[in-house]
């Protein structure tokens, strides 16, 4: 049982039906001059193309999932792409910060690597593309979100609290000491949505993995257990990401003489 109540051909019709709703929304946005029409269409086309692209790739990978020599190279390339794209996208959150991508990319890679390593070691992620690709997507996606939140918050808080930070520097604090409170606040703030989601798991939020397993007909208890394992690993990776962002961003805010850099 695939869990999907129609064939691929019927699915194309359902997709067309679902698109009608989007077209209505699009027309309303043009009519109301909301200014999101173009972005909406671009997002829809990009998202759709990416989804079908990955589906084609996964179809190929799943066919050879017993032959590691075939599936391993494209999976590594895919994971590399996730890291590069995630790092670049997240770096855009740090308005004006030079070299932000050199913070975001390693932070996202480290967070996702922690999640995936623990998942693999605990055997929650068998080393097959069927598991690696979607779980890597979740791990990188979550790390990217947390990275963006942490960095955005750090830059904004630094701008707002520059005088307080310089007061600390003037009292003989190192850059690390001067940013201590601010970093802690930003790490906490970046993790709030994740913690909130954790608290509402299963009530107002059924996460992707569990939803997928349920649709595919997995026993709900097994699905819930698996989701919790995955979610906890991903939360752990997110914490690693946010801590690394806080540590690495210090060198972007301060120079080697413990002075606030010009760009901020």
């Amino acid at each position, binding site marked *: 049982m695939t869990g999907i109540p129609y064939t691929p051909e019927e699915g194309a019709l359902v997709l067309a039906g679902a698109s009608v709703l989007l077209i209505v929304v699009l027309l309303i946005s043009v009519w109301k001059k909301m200014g999101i029409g173009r972005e909406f269409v671009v997002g829809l086309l990009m998202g759709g193309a990416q989804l079908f692209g990955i589906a084609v790739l996964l179809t190929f990978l799943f066919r050879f999932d017993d032959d590691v020599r075939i599936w391993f190279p494209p999976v590594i390339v895919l994971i590399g792409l996730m890291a590069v794209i995630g790092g670049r996208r997240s770096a855009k959150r740090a308005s004006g910060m030079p070299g932000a991508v050199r913070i975001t990319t390693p932070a996202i890679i480290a967070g996702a690597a922690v999640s995936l390593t623990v998942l693999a070691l605990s055997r929650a992620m068998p080393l097959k593309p069927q598991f690696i690709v979607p779980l890597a997507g979740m791990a990188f996606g979550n790390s990217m979100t947390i990275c963006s939140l942490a960095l955005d918050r750090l830059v904004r808080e630094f701008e707002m609290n520059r*005088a*307080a930070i*310089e*007061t*600390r*520097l*003037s*009292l*003989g*604090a*190192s850059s690390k*000491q001067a940013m201590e*409170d601010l970093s802690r606040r930003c790490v906490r703030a970046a993790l709030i949505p994740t913690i909130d989601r954790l608290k509402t798991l299963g009530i107002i939020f059924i996460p992707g993995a569990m939803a997928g397993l349920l649709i595919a007909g997995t026993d709900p208890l097994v699905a819930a257990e698996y989701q919790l394992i995955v979610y906890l690993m991903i939360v752990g990776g997110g914490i690693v990401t946010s801590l690394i962002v806080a540590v690495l961003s210090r060198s972007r805010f301060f120079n080697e*003489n*413990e*002075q*606030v850099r*010009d760009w901020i």
Partner: protein
Amino acid sequence: MNIYEIRNVEVALGRKKVLKGIDLDVRKGEIMALVGPSGSGKTTLLRCLNRLIDPDSGSIRFEGKDIRSIDPVELRRSAVLVPQESIMLDGTVENNILYGPRIAGASRKVDVAGCLEDAGLPPKMSGREASRLSGGEKKRVALARALALEPRVLLLDEPTVGVDPRKVDQVERTILQFSERRRLTVVWVTHDVPQAMRVSTRIANLKDGKVREVKETSEFEWEGVY
């Protein structure tokens, strides 16, 4: 003996050249007032003296050493800058006063009451929430906080701006008293020339990023400042 020797210092902030070749000596134990109109470079020069910024060119020597060879964190503990805006750190007045010595890992016992008294505040104030103090009280806590580091130089940026005009002379007197008692060198930035004449031993007049004149206070004529 000079505690600071400043030679041909130039600083640009963004595209604007703020200091255009400053030459100035600060003698050990004196109160040197830096006066001049807004934008003349007083605060920028003060920030160079504890390495919150470094000059683009020129040199500054502190106690005979090139300032660039001194660890900025160590320098800032010896030459403490009290900014114009008195920002209180989280917690009580005592937390604020202990901040500098604590992060420096000082093993000596800090005389919180003594610092407060020197800054003209009652010792019983140490338990109060710092963020809830009046503007004038915050100014004094900022001074007490600087004194807790037992610095050799105090760099004061407009220390009476925002203080109730009736209490300005009290703050001035407080600073003069503790400076004398602790044998501090003070560099005092002010736009208020009469104040500079009341408190300082020498006055440096800055205009458009340059030192126009340096004189003993008794010889200074303030008509030329603005």
